[in-house]
């Protein structure tokens, strides 16, 4: 019994760790799509944010291994939060290019997003190789806090939420709640949704479509960059210039979550669980005994995405004007 509880706690905390970046990026994508702009540049934005954030960490952290190891929770968390904000600003700057092309210049949203998806990894690898000589950027700090104060003593909940976690978990929860309140409870949020459903109607009552769409794209860029940073520091101690399709997975999460914050949370949890099974099936005795190739397990999150999309895409409630260029002159 004790073994089983420990096992479930383990799986849950792995799941939480891998779902948080997905959740944050998917929330960003949700805000963006609700304003009527599709943002499939999130993959590139995540890579760029992670790159900038990890660069900051590399220069700001203690330069000896021992010192880096001995950092207190507060030091780690401060470094983490500043890195996340810097990553977010990096993502915001990149998404500004997307906003400029797709809103001001009325260019094709898919093409400009694709270009950004190409720019980010290319630029990152180029700079990393020019400056560090390799495509990996390694850092020393492990952001996991072993125990978070007295809260860690609470049975089960303490083990899941307050032991061996990084501060990203709390950032994710705050982002989710803030996005919910923003979209459904504030005037700007309601206007945002109006922009995505019927921009001409919103325009006719005095909503500035361009401003709101700019804001939404920049917000998704910020959250995307932040999510990229959190992804990069959660998986290991080096960043290789890839977020393994998380930017696109986030869009799948958004579709599965039907453009609603708490369903997005559920969808992100589902994908996090799939990923946990894929990456740590050896810890699960029942799965390990099946003797299936590791490559098949790694396929699971992607196959699961397809299955879920098949089940949910028919009855999707996508914002009606998502992906369409807004031109005041047309009807």
């Amino acid at each position, binding site marked *: 019994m004790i073994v089983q509880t420990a096992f479930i706690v383990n799986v849950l905390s792995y799941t939480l760790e891998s779902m948080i970046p997905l959740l944050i990026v998917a929330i960003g994508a949700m805000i963006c799509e609700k304003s009527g702009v599709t943002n499939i540049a999130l993959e590139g934005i995540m890579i760029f944010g992670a790159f900038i954030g990890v660069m900051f960490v590399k220069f700001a952290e203690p330069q000896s291994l021992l010192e880096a190891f001995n950092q207190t929770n507060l030091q780690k968390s401060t470094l983490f939060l500043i890195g996340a904000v810097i990553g977010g600003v990096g993502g915001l700057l990149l998404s500004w290019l997307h906003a400029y092309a797709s809103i001001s*210049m009325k*260019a094709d949203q*898919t093409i400009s997003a694709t270009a*950004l998806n190409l720019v980010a990894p290319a630029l990152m690898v180029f700079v990393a*190789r020019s400056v560090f000589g390799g495509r990996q950027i390694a850092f020393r700090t492990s952001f996991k806090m072993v125990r978070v104060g007295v809260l860690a003593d609470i049975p089960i909940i303490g083990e899941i939420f307050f032991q061996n976690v990084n501060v990203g978990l709390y950032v994710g929860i705050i982002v989710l709640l803030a996005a919910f309140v923003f979209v459904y409870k504030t005037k700007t949020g309601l206007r945002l949704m109006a922009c995505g459903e019927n921009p001409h109607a919103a325009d006719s009552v005095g909503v500035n479509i361009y401003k709101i769409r700019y804001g939404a794209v920049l917000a998704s860029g910020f959250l995307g960059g932040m999510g990229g940073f959190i992804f990069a520091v959660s998986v290991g101690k080096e960043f290789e210039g890839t977020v393994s399709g998380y930017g*696109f997975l986030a869009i799948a999460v958004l579709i599965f979550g039907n453009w609603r914050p708490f369903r997005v949370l559920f969808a992100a949890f589902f994908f996090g669980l799939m990923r946990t099974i894929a990456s740590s099936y050896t810890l699960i005795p029942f799965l390990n005994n099946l003797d299936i190739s590791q490559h098949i397990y790694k396929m699971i999150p992607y196959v699961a995405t397809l299955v879920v999309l098949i089940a949910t895409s028919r009855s999707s409630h996508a914002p009606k004007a998502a992906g369409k260029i807004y031109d005041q002159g047309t009807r």
Partner: protein
Amino acid sequence: MKKETSAFMTNLRDLWRKVMQSEGMKRAIPSFIAIGFGIGFGILTMAIIWLLVKLNVFNVYNDPQFFHGVARLLAGGFNKGMYSIGNMLHRAAPLILTGLSVGFAFKTGLFNIGAPGQLLFGGLVAIFIGAKVTLPAPWHWMLAMIAGVLAGGLWGLIVGALKSIFNVHEVVSSIMMNYIAMYFAFWAIETFDLLHRFYDRITDSFRVANFTLTLPPSAYLPRGLSSVFGGFTLNIGILIALAAVVVIHIVLNKTTLGYQLKAAGYNRDASKYAGMNTKRDIVLSMAISGMLAGLAGTVMILVPDKKMFMDQPTMMGEFMSIGFDGISIALLGLSEPIGVGLAGLFLAYIRQGGDYIDLAHYMKELADVITSVIIYFSALSVALHQYMVERKKKKAALKQAPAGGESA
């Protein structure tokens, strides 16, 4: 005699003017603007790095040489005479094919970002046939190629079917199919024993390498002409690619099928109303698109010394990235088969130049940066071009309006 030459010259000038004023040329203007911006950005990046190193902001092992680097970059496929031209043509073949794949899908209103997976799957099946089947020379590579094409088509067909039956967005499902193809390939290579084995003297036993085995020579595409290309052995890949350009051009512009698929691309509702089976069209065009990508995969793999590696970064960087390049090429070539052919050659040219900037101590990844900047600006410059044309029209209208007003 002199008259004849001048007549010839005027003819030539007329031809030049005709080409420059043709519809295709006008549509290509945004691409040229974008190429200019992209290369300008690349040179600017080189200058910044050169300056930073000169000012000791950071140090590198070898100081970059700015002017040397720019010259190498711009010389592209002409860096080493015929040898590098041969290399460029060899490189261009799969690029043109994936560009055609993505471009064909664009023409029919679909975004096939799944070309990497289709390419990989086609290549995988070609390796399988190449290694497991014994056949004499022309039949062996032909069989491997056809099987690879069909495999790529199947991979595209799945995406098309998911879209037409279940309304699954093709971009997201294609990306998932790319990852599934990659892990499937790793699994298949291990399971079907397609790995290279080598004899290890130290442990006195056979060991398994992390890349696929060498195919028998009967599975290689016919190749030759090494005396023409200064020692570079070119294969028929580029001819296959050019043939594909012609075939797709004919299919799109001269056949009912092509017309139907294009019509669905312009307006799906209208073509549905006109009685076309749009659901079937989606599946069909994704399958054709996938077949082209699969063909690219076979052209890449059915050559001596080309292997698939078992680790993710190499698989992504060396193999699947060609599929992503297809997107750039299709955009740059405006999805027109002939434009795609030219864009594929251009990309191969810039890549070739990128390889040679190593000599000036720059990183060859700069070529990728340049390509992606070109794509961004081609998205922008289509819009910019439209804006300019509209402004011209407005100005012309304004000029006429006062004249009309006075007479009234």
